[in-house]
C-alpha cells in the first residue's frame, strides 16, 4: 500500500513531461489564496472542475477545482464535489487558452475542449479572469519550500 501511494506520486510527477497545468493551477491557487481576485465570486458565481490529459486520447492525469462561488474564491487540486461545469482538455491546449493564444470558443468548436454540465455557467469562465501564466507571473506567485 505504501509503495502504491508513493508510486502514485511518482507517476504523477513523471508523466514524460511536467504538466504545464500543474504550474498554472499552482499560480491560480496562490493568486486566490493571497486574496487577489476576491471579486470573482460575485462576477462568476460558479464552481468549475478541470480534467487535464497529458495528451490527446490519454487518461486524465490531473483534476483541479476552481471555486468561484464561495467567498473567498479558491482553487485546489483534486476533483470537485459539486462542479457546475467540467472542462476536459489536454495540457498544452489548456496552457494556450490561459495564455490567450487559443480562443476558448474555438477550442470548444474544434473539439479540443469538452464541457459537461451547465453550459451557461461554463461560458462565464474566461482566461481573463486570471493573470496569464507568463514566466513572470508564475515566478511572482511561486511558493517557498520546506
Amino acid at each position: 500500500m505504501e509503495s502504491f501511494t508513493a508510486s502514485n506520486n511518482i507517476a504523477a510527477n513523471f508523466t514524460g513531461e511536467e504538466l504545464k497545468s500543474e504550474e498554472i493551477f499552482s499560480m491560480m491557487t496562490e493568486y486566490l489564496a493571497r486574496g487577489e481576485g476576491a471579486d470573482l465570486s460575485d462576477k462568476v458565481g460558479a464552481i468549475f472542475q478541470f480534467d487535464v490529459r497529458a495528451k490527446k486520447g490519454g487518461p486524465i492525469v490531473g483534476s483541479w477545482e476552481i471555486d468561484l462561488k464561495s467567498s473567498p474564491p479558491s482553487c485546489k487540486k483534486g476533483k470537485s464535489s459539486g462542479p457546475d461545469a467540467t472542462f476536459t482538455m489536454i495540457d498544452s491546449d489548456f496552457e494556450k487558452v490561459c495564455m490567450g493564444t487559443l480562443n476558448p470558443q474555438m477550442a470548444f468548436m474544434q473539439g479540443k475542449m469538452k464541457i459537461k454540465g451547465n453550459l451557461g455557467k461554463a461560458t462565464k469562465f474566461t482566461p481573463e479572469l486570471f493573470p496569464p501564466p507568463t514566466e513572470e507571473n508564475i515566478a511572482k506567485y511561486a511558493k517557498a519550500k520546506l
Partner: protein
Amino acid sequence: MAMRKAFTGGACAPGGQEQTMGNNAFTNMIDYMVSGGASASQKAEGFVPQMDSSNIAQMEAAYADQQKMEAMTKQFDAMSMPQQVMPQAPAPQEHISQPNIDQMNNLWNNPVETNKHADIEAIEHKFSNMPVHAQNFTGLPGMMGPMMYPPMGMGPQTMAPTTQQPTEEIKVEEVPEVVKVDDQMLKDDMKESTAYLINKLSQVPSEKMQNSQFLGFLKQMNSGALEVDENGLKENPQKMKEFEDAALKKARMDAEWYKDPIDGNLEETKENQKFYGEEGIIKEKDPFTNFDPHEFFKDSWNADELKEDELQKMMANWKAQAMKSQDFYEETLTQPPTETVIQVPKVDHFKFEEDNPYSNVEDAYTLACQLNEELKVHDAILALKAHLTKEPEHAPSWRMLGQLYQENDEDDKAIAYLLKAYELDPYDCESLLYLGVSCTNELNPKVAMNHLLDWLRYHLDYSDLPIPQEHIEDQDLLRDELRGLLNQALAKNPNDVDVLICLGVVEFGERNYRGAAEYFGQAVEREPNNYNYCNKLGAALANHLRTDDALQMYDRALALRPNLVRTWANVGVAYCNRDRFDEAAGKFMNAIALNPDAEHLWKHLHACFWATKEFEKCEQVKKRNIEYFRGEYDIINPEMLQRSEL
C-alpha cells in the same frame, strides 16, 4: 369561435392582443394527431363545426394539448435562459423550476384524458383566462456569440396570421373569416415552428434530450420528411430517404472530425500546421459554414469521459508496476526531453555516473558523511553513489542521498531515493519524515500525510498509539486523524522536536502557514542552530506573506549553512513575490552556482530577466552560461565557500 380558440391557443384574447403562439400549422398538426383528419383541416380553415358531444371531446383534447404545448414551451424557455427576465405573464400557478425531460417526452406519448362531463362554458372560461404567453426570444447563450446559429427571428409568432382575428367580443356565435390556407404557407409555418423548437431543445445539455424521439420527430418534420396533409401525418418517402442519408453522413463526418489528428501538442504535423496555422487558430477553412448547432452539440455531450472503473484499472496498473520497484523506476524515469524554456535531457536517477572518483574507496558512505560536513555536497553525493554501486541495499546511503537532494532543491529526485530507502528498511523513520517534506513541496499533501502516518506507525515511541491500519484516502479525514495522533505523541514526549516538525508540515500542506510557522517557531526555539528548522520557519513565514521576517530566518539558515541551495532559492522566490526581479536574479544565481543541475532554478532565473526585459541575459541563461554573469553579480564560488568554512 370557441372552437377556433381551442385550436388557436386563445389567439383572440379578450383584450384583442395577438397571442404569440398557437395560430400556426404546428398546433393544427396537434389536432391531427389527436382528433383526426378532415375536421381538423376544416378547423384550420376556420370553419365552425357543430357543437356536439364528439366535438366537445375534441375540444377538451385540444385544450389538453394546448396546455401541454404551453407547459413545454415554458420549460424550453426555463432551460435555455435561466437568467433572463421572465415574461410579465400573470401565471403564478405555472411555476416550472426544473426541466423534466421525461415528463416532456411523455407529454407526447400519453393518451389524452377526456372528461365526459365537460361543460362548454367552463372550457370557454378557461380559454379566456389563459395567460398571455409573451415569449422573449432573446437568442442563445453568450458563449457561442456571433458565431452561433442566429435566433429564429422571433419564433413562430412573427408569422402573419392566416386569418384575421376580430378584436372585440369572442362569442361562440361569431362567424369566422374564411381564408384559404394554402399548402406552401402551411409548410413554411411548420418549418419555422419546428426549427424554433429544435433550436430550443438543442440547447438543453442532456443526453436524454438530444436522443429523444421527440427531437428526432421534430427534425423529420423540419426537413420535410414528415408532412401534414388532410389525412394526418404522412411520410414523404423521397425526403425521408434524404433525411436519413444526411443523418448518416453527418454521423460519419462527426466521427471523422473527432478522429482528426489535430492535437494541441508539439508533434503537430506540417499538414496541420498549414491548415491550422501557428497556434491552432484556423486560417484556411471557415468552420462555421454548414455549422449545425444541434448536431454539433449532440456529439460533444456524448463524448467519452474517464469512467470510474477505467480509473480504477489505471491505478491498479500503477500499483502492479510499483511492485517491480527498481524496474519501474528505471522505466519511468528515462523520459524524452521536455519542452521547457531550456532544453535539457532528463537524467535517469538510478543510472549513476560511470567515472566516479570515489569508486575505489573502501567505505564511501563514511566518506560521504565527512564530505557533507565540509559543505562538499557535490562530492558527498558522488561518494554515496559510488557506495551504492557496490552495495545497492544500503538503506542509509539512499536516505542520505534523498536528504542531500532535498537540500539541493530537487524534491523529485529526493522522493525517488527516499522511497528506495524506505523500501529497503521500513523502519527508517527519518526517510518517512523527509518524504513528508518533499511530497508537501511537490503539492501532494495527501501522500505526504500518509507518509507521516507511517512515520508514527514505525516509530518506537509512538507505535502503540491508535494508528489506523490502512492509509486514509479522504484528505480531510486523514488530516484530522493525523493531527490528533501527533498531538497525542507530543503529549507523550513534549521534547520531541520531530513531532513539532510533523505538525508543522501538516499545516504547511494544508496551506495553514500561520499554524505551520507556530510549530516551526517552537522547533527553532528548541534548536536555534538547526539550519533545517530555520529554513522551514522562513518558508512558512514567506508563504504567509511575512516576507521581511522570512528573509531574516533565511539569512540565519544561510549563516549556518551557506551552501543550502533550498534557502537560496527560497530567498529568490521571496524577492519575486515582491516583484523585485533584479535582486531575485542574484539569489537564483547563487543557488545555481551551488547546484547547476536543478532545472527549475534556471527557469526562475530566466523569468527574472524576462520580467526586467533584459533579453540578452535571457539568451545567456538559455545557454546556461553562468560565467557571463560573474562580473556583474556577486556570485558565490562553491570552492571558496567551503575552504573558508574550514
